[in-house]
């Protein structure tokens, strides 16, 4: 069972997939060339690979939270995006429980979370998640 101070099991993406970035542009109906054309990224002086969408990183962090127990509900999610993530990068979603409250048969977990890329934090923020007390969070996945 997780309690204040406990770390979440990290959620790892070994290599951000170029094809997934293209698919996500389609899903988002987002024509931004930085996700589609490495040449455009280069022309902007940002690098030489297409850039992953910020919301994909948010998705990795949500997956980490959701993997911690069955039927986890995210109540509040708040992040700042500090750095770009490129196709091929290895990213690791991490987080820990800062505080826990129990009331009305539910446990509310206040969490810190961040997404590491090449040892730096690309996304950082907080979340509040809820779970029924009978399904309290566990690292025993």
């Amino acid at each position, binding site marked *: 069972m997780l309690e204040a101070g406990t770390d979440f099991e990290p959620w790892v993406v070994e290599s951000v997939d170029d094809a997934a970035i293209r*698919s996500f542009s389609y899903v988002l109906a987002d024509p931004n060339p930085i996700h589609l054309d490495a040449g455009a990224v280069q022309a902007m002086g940002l690098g030489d690979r297409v850039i992953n969408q910020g*919301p994909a990183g948010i998705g990795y962090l949500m997956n980490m939270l959701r993997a911690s127990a069955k039927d986890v509900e995210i109540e509040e999610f708040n992040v700042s995006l500090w750095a770009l993530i490129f196709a091929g990068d290895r990213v690791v979603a991490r987080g820990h429980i800062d505080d826990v409250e129990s009331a009305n048969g539910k446990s509310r977990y206040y969490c810190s979370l961040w997404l590491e890329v090449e040892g730096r934090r690309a996304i950082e923020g907080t979340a509040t998640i809820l779970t029924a007390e009978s399904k309290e969070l566990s690292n025993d996945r």
Partner: protein
Amino acid sequence: MAIARFAALPGTVLPEGAFVISPEEDRLVREIVGEASSSTGRAHPLWAFIATQRGIGTSVAELCALADFDVADGPKMAGWNATFTGELLTGYSYRVTGEVTDIVRKRGKSGLFDLMTFVERLVDEDARAVVTTTTTFVLPRKNH
């Protein structure tokens, strides 16, 4: 951009729209972000971002154009907040509403940029917001 128009942007109501999260697209999104679990009628919470962006009655390019910014110049996301007050379901038609709340001009190491913030929400048939999101875009002003 005219200073007066820039200053008038906060409070601009975005055209209302509607959005249905299809089970097929929910599966695709789970695949994109690497979640193995299948759709069971409850959509992945990342749809809070996707459904508001796609469902609001204006495109990303049109949203950027409100601030005289060309989407081809590469807007980036600086921050995102979501408050969930209900479940996101697949196959359900949500009303999507929103407005621009702020735009601030700043200068950083890479030059001049604007931070444009807007609020969007998915509203159910009882007129209840099931999720409210606040998104901040960085709009780099490459010609300044």
